[in-house]
């Protein structure tokens, strides 16, 4: 009971913040931002509590809520009529993977709220209200145990994000917001139709039940029951398509580039850090969880998609001359590794994919945090106009370099672990694709160094105009936290690996590996 | 009294309704449109009263209902005219086809 209350509190406390914000006078921004940051940080405390509790007892079963929500059907006993019962539950729960994602969400929300203080210049109440609703929704997405609840939270993130991108940010933000909305709404539409189809044919929407029902029916059920192979293939491909938008898989990625380039850096921290991870989360939980056989059949396709993402993103990141776009394409490239890991369908691969999901969340967050701080000073993010930043701002440059190193997969940092595991996993299965993918990490080095060194190294004519202030300690704090997390995963990956193991075993049980 | 068949009442109601509909759809003056709507409501009232008297089980429900409709119609007209006056202050026109501000 207390455990489930904590989970509920974790998800809902930001909403209290929304209410609190409405009572703050309009001209008292100081109080407003403090309340916003405070409430965005509370879930982080809860998530830390859950993690510690998890490592002490080793169980997450307590953290679940099962409430009847909507029940309908036809139970009449008239002859010639089969009884039906449809149940939609308000089910929340955690497994190792979602626990880590909840933790990541809570952490990044706190830091992002902190980072946005200086970036929001108008309509702060609306901003923080939406921000907190978004936080609740993201936490909800990762803890929902019911497909419709998942979908509900998923849609809430979409709408709040749409406004957050469209109202605050750079010049073309409205266009970016519309692209974001259109692409993702189409993806959601496909996802929703798949969910409805599954729901209508099984009568339940609980994720755990469905995983057992659909995944195992394929092998265990007698003839004629469950979905036919063709249906399952179609459903799997539709899910892949739906999450491809969120992922994003080339060629559905243009909205991502626009959002990265046009939204506030603080929002992009959240967006690159968490929102696109919902695509990976969905693909792993629903794609692999519900349709393991199909995932196996289409693993080559997924591997190819991953490879294309990896190379395509890296190549374009190499020639873009605006740091935010470079980072956007690097996100595309990094998500390719998630796909490669998923395609491997073994412990190494899936663990690599999950690690990459978390690791890239941290890396993207630190990079965009720093870019935000840089922009606050330089008011430009075009590489050609920057340079020599290391002279006046050694700390910012150091963090930028460290983030870049993590991004290009330097050992000792989180990116390396995930890449290495994904590659090890995939090599058994698709050696040729793996070899090409490994070559991709050369390009990663090229684009990361090109961008980071263009900013930090060099003579820096722009620097001569005025003296720039380096990061103060309070400004550096988020970067310190993120970098510590990146290093922690890189140096002691087993802590995370142990958390993830049950979730991976569950998925692999479906695959039968 | 009963020499007048029910169909005559219904015919009257139809004629009234059609006039009201025509007026509501074609007149540009908002006041006329409102009057036309009143016509349609009254057409409905006639129907109600007719069926109340000539229906399968004649009773007073229809009469009472028509009283309600009149009351509501009066309130509606009052609200509509109030809105119209408020609009007229902002935009000196009573032509209904110029009141498309929600579109733009």
């Amino acid at each position, binding site marked *: 009971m207390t455990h489930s209350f904590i989970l509920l509190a974790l998800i809902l406390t930001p909403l209290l913040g929304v209410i609190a914000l409405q009572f703050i006078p309009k001209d008292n921004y100081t109080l407003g931002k403090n309340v916003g940051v405070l409430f965005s940080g509370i879930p982080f405390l809860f998530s830390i509590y859950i993690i510690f509790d998890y490592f002490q007892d080793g169980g997450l079963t307590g953290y679940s809520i099962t409430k009847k929500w909507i029940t309908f059907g036809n139970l009449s006993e008239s002859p010639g009529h089969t009884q039906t019962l449809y149940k939609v539950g308000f089910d929340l729960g955690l497994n190792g993977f979602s626990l880590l994602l909840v933790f990541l969400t809570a952490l990044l929300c706190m830091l992002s709220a902190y980072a946005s203080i200086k970036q929001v210049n108008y309509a702060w109440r609306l901003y923080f209200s939406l921000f907190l609703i978004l936080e609740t929704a993201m936490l909800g997405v990762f803890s929902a145990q019911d497909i419709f609840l998942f979908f509900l939270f998923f849609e809430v993130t979409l709408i709040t994000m749409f406004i957050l991108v469209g109202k605050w940010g750079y010049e073309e933000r409205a266009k970016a917001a519309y692209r974001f909305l259109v692409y993702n709404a189409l993806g959601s539409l496909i996802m929703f139709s798949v969910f409805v189809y599954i729901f209508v044919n099984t009568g339940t929407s609980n994720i755990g039940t469905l995983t057992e029902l659909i995944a195992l029916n394929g092998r265990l059920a007698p003839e004629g029951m469950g979905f036919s192979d063709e249906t399952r293939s179609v459903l799997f491909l539709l899910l892949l398509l739906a999450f491809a938008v969120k992922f994003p898989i080339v060629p559905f990625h243009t909205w991502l580039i626009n959002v990265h380039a046009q939204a506030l850096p603080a929002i992009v921290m959240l967006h690159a850090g968490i929102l696109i991870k919902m695509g990976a989360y969905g693909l792993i939980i629903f794609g692999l969880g519900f349709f393991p056989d199909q995932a196996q059949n289409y693993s080559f396709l997924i591997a190819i998609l991953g490879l294309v993402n990896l190379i395509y993103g890296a190549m374009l990141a190499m020639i873009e001359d605006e740091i935010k776009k470079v980072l956007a394409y690097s996100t595309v490239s990094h998500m390719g590794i998630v796909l490669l890991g998923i395609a491997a369908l073994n412990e190494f691969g899936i663990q690599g994919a999950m690690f990459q999901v978390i690791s890239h969340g941290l890396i993207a967050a630190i990079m965009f945090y720093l870019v935000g701080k840089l922009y606050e000073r330089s008011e430009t993010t075009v590489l050609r106009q920057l340079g020599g930043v290391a002279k006046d701002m050694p700390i910012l440059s150091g963090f930028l370099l460290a983030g870049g190193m993590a991004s290009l997969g330097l050992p000792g940092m989180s990116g390396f672990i995930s890449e290495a595991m994904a590659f090890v996993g995939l090599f058994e299965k698709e050696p040729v694709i793996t070899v090409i993918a*490994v070559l991709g990490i050369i390009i990663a080095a090229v684009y990361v160094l090109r961008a980071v060194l263009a900013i930090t190294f060099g003579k820096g004519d722009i620097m001569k105009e005025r003296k720039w202030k380096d990061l103060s300690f309070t400004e550096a704090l988020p970067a310190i936290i993120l970098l510590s997390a990146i290093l922690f995963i890189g140096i002691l990956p*087993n802590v995370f690996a142990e958390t993830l193991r049950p979730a991976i075993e569950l998925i692999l049980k479906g695959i039968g590996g | 009294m009963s020499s007048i068949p029910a169909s005559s009442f219904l015919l009257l109601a139809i004629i009234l309704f059609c006039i009201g509909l025509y007026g509501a759809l074609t007149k540009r003056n908002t006041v006329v449109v409102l009057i036309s709507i009143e016509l349609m409501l009254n057409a409905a009232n006639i129907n109600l009263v007719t069926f109340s008297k000539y229906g399968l089980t004649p009773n007073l429900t229809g009469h009472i209902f028509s009283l309600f409709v009149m009351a509501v119609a009066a309130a509606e007209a009052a609200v509509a005219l109030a809105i119209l006056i408020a609009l007229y202050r902002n935009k000196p026109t009573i032509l209904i086809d110029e009141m498309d501000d929600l579109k733009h």
Partner: protein
Amino acid sequence: MIHSAWLIPVLPLLSFLIVILFLRNKPKLGSLVANCFSLITFILATLVLVGRLQGDSLLREWNWLEVGSTTITLGFEINALNSLMLFIVSFVSFLVNVYSLEYMEGDDRKSIFFAYLGLFTFAMLALVISPNLLQTYIFWELVGLGSFLLIGFYFYKDSARAAAKKAFIMTRIGDVGLLIGILLLFTQVGSFEYDEIFAAVRNGELIGSVITASAILIFIGAVGKSGQFPLHTWLPDAMEGPTPVSALIHAATMVAAGVYLVAATYPLFEVSQIALTTVAVVGCFTAIFAASIGLFQKDIKRVLAYSTVSQLGFMMLALGTSGYVAGVFHLTTHAFFKALLFLAAGSVIHAVHTQDIEEMGGLNKRMKITSLVFLIGTLAISGFPLFSGFFSKEEILISAWTSGNEIMFFIALFTAFLTSLYMFRVYFLVFTGETSEASSHAKESGSAILVPMLILAVFAVFSGFINTHWFGTYLSDFLLEDAQITVKETHAPTWILYAATIVSLAGIFTSYLLFGKNKTKFGESSFSKSPVYSIVYNKYYIDEIYDAIVVKPTRLFAAGLKFIEWFCVGGIMKTISGCIQFVGWIGSRLQSGKIQTYGTIAVFIFALFILVYGVTNGGLLK
């Protein structure tokens, strides 16, 4: 003592952390702290080497990551090769630390410099005690990071930025080969451990092609780090870093890591003749190729850089011709005399503020000690009899000869001649003759610079005696004791010794005639107009060729993708948004805002319904 060997890499890491976190703005204290740590590290490493000499071996591992049923471990291993490398690295690192106390004086980022040195030393020491391939790879990349940071130390110079970037990327190309090799071995053996991989090789669990492929892939990694052809171009550019860094990283330790890697995985190479031949051919070609470029360079550090590349080629040649001991032996002696040469060059640059040897001259009057140690280093690298290089180079020549490959032997012999030629060119141009204008204000450096050089000079002279046929082959016995390789008894003809001596002396003599007596300066002579000179002086245009065949096409490809992005992907996007806009347009046309229009449409459609209902007699609704 040997049980706390894990402390050896940890200490420099601590030094890095302490200095970068707390002493960033305190150059004096920071450099002192770094030096203390460095000294303790060196003492510990020496104790470990002594312990190993007494016969202790150690392998200890901890679980690092569990994936499914596989457990990946990290740990440390002390065997003969490791302990020797520990000693060399910590020794040179300590001396370079001391040297930098004076060399980096006045730089306001002095503390950072020492921190980076600590980071690099940590990675390098951890690399050499790694007991498995994954750990090796981890630190392999980290030494690359250290090297990158130090090359780019003068970050405000555009050339330093380019050099740092190039070094990182070029070595990463090699690293990718290594990574693929590791992946291949892991899928075949199921473990990253050296011991298990070697056991699998011994027991014939691996088919020949896998061994060959993985050995060559590992060698690609070594090619990248050790600056072998065709990935050598970064090493000369890396001279943009401060000179002590060049001495430590780009002469003595990191670039030798490639040789170390091949030596550490020697059991793999040993069973594959193709892999061995590849190593030998690449090494041999690199040796003569780099030597020929070194002959014409004007920048003193670049000459030394090319000589490093060339000497590393020698080591590879030795390893490729089954000369395991010869390769490691040359690695050891080379670490001492090349570090010495770089430090001496640094001392010269410190004094004259130019790196162009043709602008220097007559420094032996002004910088007596520097001149002396430089001469010692030059003699050692030229293989002058009884200096350290003499013994190790002879070993390599013997191993080349006994492998039966005469062509390579003669190439190596000719390269030895070139080596003494171009090294003495530097010596004669810089130190002898008339005092040039640049040299006229030179002053001898202080003791912090001189003492490390003198210590290294001692080693450069005498380190050869650890492995001679006259006094005893101590190194060979020590290394082969626990190396899991088979040793072929070889009989070296004694004439090789004489040939090596003659070649070395001939090189020195030619050099004296050309540069000592006549002061030939290529830049001013008519020879500089000839195409041969310009080809070699421009390093055979390798950089330009890479630019043309790799960089430009990649950029073109990326630009092509950009076009696809803009045209196809953007096209898809426009189609989608176009459709949506079209739907919206229709909707917006219908929604004129005129209520009467809506009403009319509603009425007519209602009427239509009624009509249809009437005509079909309600059929549509049944």
